[in-house]
């Protein structure tokens, strides 16, 4: 239920917020938006240039006519024939456009006009005329009685030279065909515009899709990786530069995953193996004991032996729980400032019982203050000492030294022995749980193989490190490095 409503919410957000869109959708949207912008600007300016040019031409045409009439009236005021020719017949001579002209006296009485003009364009329709010496202003467009649109212009003209007489000139040009043309042009232009936007959206979608292809491929590749195929890597394939770092990062993550996965399955296998031995002993002993009647003493021996196995199992569980807790987020340690050597001394005293028995000398030197969890610290030192005692022969020596770095930033505790050392091939895995070499298994069957793992996890909890150096037949040195607690 709740997941469904979640989906709904997400879908709802989807529509509103660009951030929730798929990248393809986003790219297509942005691409279309910018392409449409460019298309609209281009068409609108083309349209504007065309209209402007047409109007300019029309105006120029009428201005020209008016100039001609002005010249006729000024130069040859008495040549009525020329005037008549220009006014009456010039309009009829034009084939595609209609042109009308009219000459009026100062009292606005028509002196002469193109035939039929009076019915279509009355005198009053014209704008205010420009002065005698002025260039005619741009005309105005008016719809006339015949339903056509005319560009109208009026201007005063001088009659003869410097006699103060003037007449009014009115000229009209039919611009209806042009308007039709412009309307047609506008229609076509918007059609082209819409088509262009649609095409750019489609192209944008294809481009985005194509661009996103590597991402889809990388997703597909990643989806093929399962826990059984963790060894696959995606970095060696050809990826666009932007994805190479992603692929590399992903490969690194896989590397780590594979590593911990291998460790985990190794751990499970080891755990099963470690459990098998004591449980096998328990089952076998009990079965044999029960197979016939025994004396109480024999039963007692079986029970005692079982108890030893149980103790071993219980000890193993404790150690594993300790490790699990150390790894979990709730692992919290109580740091206390203490004298390192004093704590070491008390652990040494404990193990000294065995050391004396085996004629091994344990010496401690150096000093330093450490802020750490004292119980965990003792446990780590105790594990290291116990291990060193296992592998150090009679009359050997174990040295524990404490070194505080000069800047007080860290404390190093190292435990060295003159024991049998560890073969290099085992060193790398010595801190793994249950990891034991064959010699350890045979010489020290009671151990759990968790001692070093516990040391490592104690150091992890403190944010410190543990390093082991060893030379076969010469001895080993384990160094714990505690960082400053601040």
């Amino acid at each position, binding site marked *: 239920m709740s997941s469904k409503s979640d989906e709904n919410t997400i879908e709802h957000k989807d529509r509103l917020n660009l951030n929730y869109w798929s990248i393809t959708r986003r790219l297509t949207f942005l691409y279309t938006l910018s392409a449409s912008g460019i298309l609209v600007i281009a068409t609108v300016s083309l349209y504007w240039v065309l209209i402007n040019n047409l109007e300019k031409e029309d105006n120029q045409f009428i201005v020209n006519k008016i100039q001609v009439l002005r010249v006729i009236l000024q130069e040859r005021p008495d040549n009525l024939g020329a005037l008549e020719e220009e006014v009456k017949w010039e309009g009829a001579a034009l084939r595609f456009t209609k042109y009308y002209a009219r000459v009026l006296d100062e009292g606005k009485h028509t002196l002469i006009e193109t035939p039929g003009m009076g019915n279509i364009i009355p005198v009053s329709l014209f704008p205010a005329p420009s002065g005698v010496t002025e260039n005619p202003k741009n005309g105005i467009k008016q719809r006339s009685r015949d339903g056509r649109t005319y560009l109208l212009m009026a201007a005063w003209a001088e009659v003869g030279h410097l006699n103060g007489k003037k007449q009014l000139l009115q000229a009209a040009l039919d611009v209806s065909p042009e308007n039709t043309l412009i309307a047609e042009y506008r229609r076509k232009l918007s059609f082209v515009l819409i088509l262009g936007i649609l095409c750019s959206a489609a192209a944008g979608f294809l481009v985005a899709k194509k661009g996103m292809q590597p991402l889809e491929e990388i997703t597909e590749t990643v989806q093929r990786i399962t826990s059984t195929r963790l060894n696959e890597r995606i970095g060696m394939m050809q990826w666009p530069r932007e994805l190479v770092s992603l692929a590399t990062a992903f490969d690194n993550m896989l590397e780590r995953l594979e590593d911990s996965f291998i460790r985990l399955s190794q751990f499970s296998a080891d755990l099963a193996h470690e459990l098998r031995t004591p449980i096998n002993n328990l089952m076998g002993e009990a079965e044999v004991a029960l197979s016939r009647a025994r004396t109480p003493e024999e039963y007692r021996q079986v*029970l*005692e*032996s*079982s*108890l*030893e196995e*149980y*103790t071993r*199992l*219980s*000890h193993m*569980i*404790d*150690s594993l*729980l300790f490790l699990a*807790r150390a790894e979990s987020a*709730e692992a*919290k340690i109580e740091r206390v400032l203490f004298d390192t050597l004093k704590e070491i001394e*008390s*652990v040494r*005293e*404990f*193990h000294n*019982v*065995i050391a004396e*028995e085996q004629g091994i000398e344990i010496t401690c030197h150096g000093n330093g203050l450490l802020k750490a969890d004292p*119980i965990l610290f*003792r*446990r780590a030192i*105790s*594990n290291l000492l*116990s291990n060193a*005692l296992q592998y150090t022969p009679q009359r050997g020596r174990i040295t524990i030294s404490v070194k505080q770095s000069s800047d007080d930033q860290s404390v190093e505790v190292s435990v060295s022995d003159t024991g049998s050392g560890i073969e290099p091939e085992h060193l790398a895995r010595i801190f793994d749980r249950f990891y034991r070499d064959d010699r350890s298994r045979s010489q020290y069957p*009671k*151990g*759990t193989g968790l*001692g070093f793992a516990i040391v490592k996890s104690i150091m992890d909890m403190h944010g410190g490190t543990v390093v082991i150096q060893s030379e076969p037949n010469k001895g080993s040195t384990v160094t714990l490095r505690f960082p400053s607690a601040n």
Partner: protein
Amino acid sequence: MRILIIEDERKTAAYLRKGLTENGFVVDITNDGDEGLFFATTHEYDLIILDVMLPERDGWSIIAEIRRGGKQTPVLFLTARDSVHDRVRGLELGADDYLVKPFSFSELLARVRAILRRGPTRQPEILRIADMEINLLRHKAIRGGQHLDLTPKEFTLLSLLVQRAGEVLSRTMIAEQVWDMNFDSDTNVVDVAIRRLRRKADDPFEKKLIHTIRGVGYVLEER
């Protein structure tokens, strides 16, 4: 001494009853929480051993109910879950001690005795068992009139065994009490220490006092 065990795991309950009865306690058992609460509030017990995970009603709510009813019967918690949080919660609710499964019976017995012993008891300065005499104040051990030459730790170990004479002490407990090593460790230090102590305190004498309980630990007693 009457002890009530509230534990749903029947095998656990059965061996606890057996072990505790054999050690001189009177034991009642119940397998579910409601019944346990009923027993705990209507009868008088010296100690309640309480499992945390129970059907019907868990250990937390049982102890809370008992304490709300004004009873201060000591409670020892048993649990399979070992987290600091649980431990703190148990103690906050008024539990007296806390044991995590798997635990050894000797450990449980020691804790039970420790809880029941609590209170103003005065340790005598001189302890005697058989022909052995321990002077806790002067740190001296004498056996058969002879002074035993012990190291300080050996003396601590011997006096622990004598103080708890007849009680089986686990290795973990000995390590904790004598060397303050309160964590599990797979060394056999305790065995070696006992061996050395025996060499001085037991071997020269005919009557042996320190006995090994195989798989459990050590006990000092006259046999």
